[in-house]
């Protein structure tokens, strides 16, 4: 019985996860090294990977700062009433329930050229939708809960006594945060960062809607994969996908490591 269950588990993993990864790998090399290299050295590939890189860096930075601060407020702040905190706490999860396409649509509706705000930004020469700012906004929306949800439980668990102790010893909030709170939450934050990077690297639906997928302008790595598949350019699609998959596997290893460190502390 036990053997049967273990073999079945292996079977599911092999069919659902391992064979597909191998397929991507072999697909990228279908035309040999040159096919892979050519696909990657296309102008649009380099541009798309660069766009993805910019989005990942900017989104991770913003989401980390705001996510940690919001988690701190939701757990510790005395100036927000208990009910308000509960309400905000349930709103934090909303992006999980929203389809990425809808997330993108929201931004188009709110900031697109036909909206009031969008027209205003257009007038001052700042393009949001179908440009980088919109794509960053869309990715921020999608990744929003990741950091908050990682940090909040850690803060709840460590309690506020150490921070209170620091304040009775004369330390103000900034000093207390860096010397007392941060060392306790840092592995949670790092785990949140890894999750944010993974999600912003792979975000597709929201970015596709907001960016318009304009080659060499607003195309990201994932939307390029999509376009290559649509154009039946399978080798090129596989090559980009392989690069993304390699990053993801790297992130997965990082996640495992961060998880272990988090458990230790």
């Amino acid at each position, binding site marked *: 019985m*036990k053997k049967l*269950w*273990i073999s*079945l*588990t292996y079977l*599911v*993993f092999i*069919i*659902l*996860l391992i064979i*597909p*990864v191998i*397929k*991507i790998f072999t697909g990228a090399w279908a035309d040999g090294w040159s096919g892979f290299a050519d696909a990657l050295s296309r102008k649009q590939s380099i541009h798309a990977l660069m766009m993805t890189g910019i989005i990942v860096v900017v989104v991770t930075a913003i989401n980390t700062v*705001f996510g940690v*601060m*919001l988690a701190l*407020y939701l757990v510790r702040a005395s*100036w927000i009433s208990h009910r308000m905190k509960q309400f905000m706490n349930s*709103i934090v*999860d*909303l*992006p*999980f*329930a*929203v*389809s*990425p*396409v*809808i997330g*993108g*649509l*929201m*931004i188009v*509706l*709110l900031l697109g050229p*036909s909206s009031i705000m969008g027209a205003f930004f257009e007038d001052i020469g700042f393009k949001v939708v179908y440009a980088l700012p919109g794509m960053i*906004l869309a990715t921020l*929306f999608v990744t929003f809960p990741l950091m908050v949800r990682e940090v909040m439980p850690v803060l709840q668990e460590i309690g506020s006594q150490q921070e209170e102790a620091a304040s009775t010893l004369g330390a*103000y*909030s*900034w*000093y207390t945060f860096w010397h007392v709170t941060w060392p306790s939450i840092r592995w949670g934050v790092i785990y949140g960062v890894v999750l944010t990077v*993974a999600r912003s690297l*792979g*975000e*597709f*639906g929201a970015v*596709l809607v907001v960016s318009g997928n304009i080659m060499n302008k607003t195309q990201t*790595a*994932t*939307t390029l*994969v*999509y376009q290559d*598949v649509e154009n039946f350019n399978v080798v090129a699609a596989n090559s980009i*996908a392989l690069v*993304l998959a390699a990053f*993801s596997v790297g992130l*997965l290893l990082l*996640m495992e490591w961060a998880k272990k460190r988090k458990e230790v502390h």
Partner: protein
Amino acid sequence: MGGNGVLNLMLRSRWWSFGFRTTIMLYFIVLIVLPIIGIYTQSFSLGWQPFWDSVTDPLAWKSVLLTTKLSVIATVINVLLGTMIGWVLVRYRFPGRRILNSLVDLPFALPTAVGGLMILLLLGPGSLVGGIADNFGIEIVFHEPAIVVAMVFVTFPFVIRAIQPLLEELDKSEEEAAYTLGASTTRTFFQVIFPTILPGILSGAMLAFSRALAEFGAVVLVAGNIPGKTLIASVYIFGEIESDNPQGAAAVSVLLLTLSFFILWAVNLIQSRRMGK
């Protein structure tokens, strides 16, 4: 200390902390609350009638219905697979266990578009699975089964990760007590173990279902997107945006969103009840 002292002094002032709080709260409202309100108002922007027309368009409601149906199937498959795998990974010791355990998160780490491409390669006409199925006259890619597979793939970790901690917490002596009282293995599983992990299965299934409803990247590549047949809701919404019909897109979005919020609320309810215990 010097520089730090100045910084402390600055951050100590009321204006700074007030500014800080306001920024964070504004960010929260502008990024999350405003867009959601925006989409609800937009869908009714032309009044009740156009909303009703958009929703009752056969292509629209068929796509929502199809998405719901396939998501349910994918969720059921995930519950079965997830319970088995969660059990095997927690209870049995065998070579490769830790690697498999880390691999569970792969669908979360992988870009969904890459996931879609993988499914396409796995099931495509040229592949082994696709070839066998073809011989039996079953078409997979660009048909419903491919969509289900894509949904199972992206929601794979939910159920497993939800029941693993519960299984680990489960006191082995509870099970042993059942055995000493003469219960069979099957009976023990259904009467002692299953009730303990049920909340995990439920909340994992809910999350998987809401994710499957919302999935776009993996599905759009394998579905074929034939209107009325394999066109799922999020792809339909995408099509409406592309054909410059934001109001129609918003109307279907509202339908889907309301469903998702309901599920999220149910998950929260299950979790808070569990906490209450």
